[in-house]
Structures are given as C-alpha cells and as structure tokens.
C-alpha cells in the first residue's frame, strides 16, 4: 500500500463519522523506484489531503523534505517534486495495520494488500 492509496481510504464501518485518516502501524516497509512524472504530480496534488499524507509519511519514515502546507506553486520546484514523488509513490507498506482513528479497529496489511473487508456486524 502506497501513501497515495492510504490518502483515499477511510473507515466505512457502519456509524463511524471520523474514520479518516487511518493511523499506520508499520511492521515492514519497502521502497522501489517509480517513474518520475511531474505532470502526474500536478494532476494528483489537488486531490491529496496533505495533513493525512504527512501523518502517513511520518509513520512510514519518508516525512523528510515535505513542507507543512504547500501551495500549487510548490509544484514548480524540483526539490518539492522529488520529495512528493518519493513519499507518494515509492514507499510501500508491506506488513502492518491501518487503524481506524475512531474505533481503533485494525485492518491488516499483508504482502502490501490492505484487507478492508468488514465483519457482518460492521456493515
């Protein structure tokens, strides 16, 4: 699970109102190279919840170089682009959990795949 995906996940247990963002518990993280495309970064930037992204990056050990509150003008700066690209797309949670901030329910992540399936009483 990349931080791009984490940014799009919220807890959908019935009745939960504040299920975003998931807290990340890390057991194992991996890194890989992803094709660097500033156009993609510009496209995706408006859709990213930056606070959630920073929290996730902190947990996954790739917070360095990410500003607190970037604006669209930051997208022209190559240093920002590289830091954003790396944290968003090149760091993967292989093993760990996503923890609902409201209920504490753990959704396991194994082999890079979050298991978001709900139990019968949670639907």
């Amino acid at each position, binding site marked *: 699970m990349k931080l791009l995906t984490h940014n799009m996940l919220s807890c*959908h247990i019935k009745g939960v109102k504040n299920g975003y963002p998931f807290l990340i518990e890390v057991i194992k993280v991996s890194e890989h190279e992803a094709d660097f495309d500033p156009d993609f970064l510009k496209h995706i930037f408006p859709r990213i919840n930056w606070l959630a992204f920073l929290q996730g990056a902190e947990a996954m050990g790739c917070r360095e170089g990410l500003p607190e509150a970037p604006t669209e003008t930051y997208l022209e700066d190559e240093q920002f682009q590289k830091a954003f690209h790396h944290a968003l797309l090149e760091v993967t949670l292989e093993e760990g959990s996503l923890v609902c901030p409201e209920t504490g329910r753990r959704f396991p992540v194994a082999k890079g795949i979050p298991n*978001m399936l*709900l139990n019968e009483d949670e639907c």
Partner: protein
Amino acid sequence: MASLVAGPSFGHPAAHRRTCQLLAVDHSLAAVEATRNTLQAHQVTEVDVIAASLLGPLVDKLRGSVDIMVFNPPYVPTPDEEVERGGIASAWAGGYRGRRIIDRVLQLLPELLSPRGELFMVTVAENEPQGIIEEMLGFGFLGRIAAARQADEEALQILHLWRQPAGLDTGAPAPGQ
C-alpha cells in the same frame, strides 16, 4: 475486480509521456493475492491492490477523482440469495437479471467519476446493457457498447459510460475515440 485509474485526462496531446496510478479492488482475498503476484512477476509497480467489498472504504475520499474505472462485475443471472451467500459463487452471482451488483456500482458512478471520468464494464446480454445506457442518460451519462464478443454461451458486451459534457453537442466524439 474493479480497477480505478487516476491520471491526466485523455484530452492532452499524445506527445507527452503519461503515467497513471491504478487501484485494483476485489472482495476475494484469493483474487487480490493472485493479482499482486501477477503484478510482481511482471515488475509492475503502478498498481496498488486492496481487498474490499464494492469500493466501500474508497467511496468517501475518491469522490470526483476517478478518471477511468474498469469493472468486471458478477454479471450472471442467478437467484437473488446467491448474491450474498459468499464463497466462490460471489465471483459470478449477479441475482435477478444479473444486475444486483452492477446496479449498486452504477449508483455510485455520478459521485465517483471525475468530470471527464469514464466507466468500462463487462456485461452480458441478459443485463440489458442498452437499457443501462438509457437509464444512465437521466443521470447525465452517455454510453455505447465499446466491444462485443461471443464466448461460449455468453454474449459479452463492454459497456462504456462517460459524463455528458456541459453544453452537449450530440455530434461530439466520445473521449478516447
């Protein structure tokens, strides 16, 4: 399996290199593991895989973000109780007219897709895809059958839906054509 694609839209000139990121979603743990293994075997890293039912944990935050959705639903007409029964049957069981799961996803479409977002969905003749196109007109979508093929007893049709552009000109080509 549903795949969601985020990437710069089709409207741009082809000269630019385009990357996109994909999410592959299925409710079967076996399916998602097999998908991930296949991706790794081919060294594909642009796809994240999630086990979830009907995009549940994604709907809230993906509102208006999905540029392309590719969906292979359980489309086979079956008794309705087979839809919720679980197990391997959930890979095909679509209930009455094979439409139970299809209809739930179609309901999400207006919220999920980006302004230029598109859906490609596998259907069979029993799902009445032309009827779906007509129904979705009322929700501001245009549609067509993008491809058709006979596979044994299944008459497969790939349904393609996209938002009506504002100030519709009915002579305009569909995105991606």
